[in-house]
């Protein structure tokens, strides 16, 4: 150590008591620390592998017995030992898409309002309230859904669509008005995923460079034209990522959906009819499953859910990551 390394501290005498800083730790303590943190980090991949192994292994008897028809057959009979999860797969997809259809325009609208137009005294309380939607437990949504929203849908929304709008013969809205239905599930899911889509959209809008907005305004665009023509195209893939992230949430959402969807193992074109989702099928029947094949079938449904949500999430993260990176 020469003296000019630390000119402001004064000359450094050779003091062997103080070891030079080691960026790559070689002492025993450092190695132990390194191993320990690495070990804890490895818990995460380990856990995922264990989950994958468990659900696929436990679901294998059903998957190998029924083959691909497990996901295409509608026959679900625990007594006869026939298991086909098609209605649950269908219900999962339709209820999630319905939720996206309702939530996306709202969530993007909220995000635009909050990040572009809202005066600051409105921004933080509204942002707080929208975030609060994500803090409400699923079972509380379910309780409110089954005791308040479902009766409201049965007594007001369904008669309105059928009698006032005369859409009762339209296959999407046909059948008796029960209340618990695919439509109710879509509504409750829409409320639940809205904060997620909105949060990601706000994040992505924040990543859009200021120059992009200024350029549009300088060319004479109105404030909305600036958003529509300059900001949204730039943020598009990130917003799509947020929507897909919401889709991932909706696909796996269990309790609230189980409580309002009516749990009927049948495929119906009408969204006013009761339906089933993969998650609610597991939630409802798992504790009562008696024979091994039934348990295995439910595990196989879980394995399907596992695979689908992983694919959806990977796509979403990739889209969001790509936009966030190009913005900086």
């Amino acid at each position: 150590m020469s003296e000019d390394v630390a000119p402001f501290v004064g000359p450094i005498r050779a003091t062997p008591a103080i070891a030079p800083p080691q960026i790559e730790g070689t002492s025993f303590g450092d190695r132990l620390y390194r191993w320990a943190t690495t070990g804890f980090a490895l818990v995460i991949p380990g856990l995922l592998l264990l989950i994958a192994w468990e659900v696929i292994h436990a679901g294998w008897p059903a998957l190998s017995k029924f083959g691909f028809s497990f996901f295409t057959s509608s026959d679900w009979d625990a007594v006869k030992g026939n298991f086909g999860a098609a209605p649950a797969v269908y219900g999962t997809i339709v209820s999630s898409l319905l939720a996206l259809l309702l939530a996306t325009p709202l969530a993007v609208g909220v995000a635009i309002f909050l990040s572009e137009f809202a005066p600051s005294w409105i921004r933080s309380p509204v942002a707080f309230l929208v975030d609060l939607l994500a803090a409400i437990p699923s079972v509380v949504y379910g309780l409110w859904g089954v005791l308040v929203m479902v009766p409201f849908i049965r007594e007001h929304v369904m008669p309105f669509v059928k009698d006032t709008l005369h859409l009762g013969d339209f296959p999407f809205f046909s059948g008796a008005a029960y209340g618990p239905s695919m439509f109710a599930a879509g509504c409750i899911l829409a409320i639940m995923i809205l904060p997620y889509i909105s949060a990601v959209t706000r994040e992505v809008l924040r990543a859009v460079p200021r120059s992009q907005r200024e350029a549009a305004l300088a060319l004479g665009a109105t404030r909305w034209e600036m958003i529509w023509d300059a900001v949204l195209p730039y943020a598009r893939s990130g917003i799509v990522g947020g929507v897909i992230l919401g889709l991932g949430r909706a696909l796996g959402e269990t309790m609230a959906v189980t409580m309002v969807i009516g749990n009927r193992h049948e495929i119906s074109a009408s969204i006013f009819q009761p339906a089933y989702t993969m998650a609610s099928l597991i939630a409802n029947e798992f504790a009562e499953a008696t024979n091994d094949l039934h348990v295995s079938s439910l595990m196989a449904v879980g394995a399907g859910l596992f695979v689908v949500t992983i694919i959806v999430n990977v796509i979403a993260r990739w889209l969001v990551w790509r936009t966030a990176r190009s913005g900086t």
Partner: protein
Amino acid sequence: MTTQSFTAQRRATWRSYRDQLAASTARTLNRRRAVSQIMIALTFVAALVAILPLLLILWHLIRQGAGSVGWAFFTHIPKPAGESGGGMANAIVGTGIIVAIASAIGLPVGIFAGLYLAEQRTARLATTVRFLSDVLNGLPSIVLGIFAWGMLVRPFKHYSALAGGMALAAMMIPLVTRATEEMIRLVPVSMREAALALGYTNWRTSLSIVLRTALPGIVTGALIAVARIAGETAPLIFTAFGNSFWSVSPTQPIAALPMQIYNYATSPYDDWHAQAWAGALVLLGLVLVISLAARFATRSGAGIGSD
């Protein structure tokens, strides 16, 4: 190469956009302004519509639930169907026990994994773990439930609080990991360098300087994770299972507030519905208090992480 084409592409977009705007001067400017005003108003309406369900839920919770939340609710165990009264004392304690088990497992794993991710930022293993942690976070909670059932209920042939706690710990780990990583990344490198320059070893620098500086932020992250798992039902139905009586044993089935709400809400009895509303009010109150405590932890801490 890619940057070049990207810039060229943007330039082309802007050029066509300028031409479009020039063409639109033929239309009246007033119309464009009106459209702009209407759309801005619509985004405001979207915000109103988005918070409407929240206000409705809060309103119903308070109106229907507040009446049943009394001293008895916190001190009695559930009455059998048909008898009014009773409380959810066992479920509240049960939720506390399950969350404690989950935190005992999830917090250390999450914090150390987060330390690893922040310190080995670019290592290939760190990138992989970070990605897989997001994947784990996106898994439906019901899948974690059947996983914990297969691992901890099936082999032992009975439900237990421990199995429920483990299922929730699996939910908690990715949340705490990412929160810890974010917070540790905010600690200035100069602090680490200062400690190293004073002769601290790497591990002491990490634990007593870096981790300690980031602690308020990590506490916030941990509390948010706790708030998130405390309201979970799906992973508990076939692990902790529920219990209508007092039980504090980790190896026995145990009651939990969210499960109790679920059972009561799906029952046909009005008394139980009232109890479910009360339970939901208490659960939401609990979650909100923890979330507010999380904000407070960051704000009061002298460290980093506050706005």
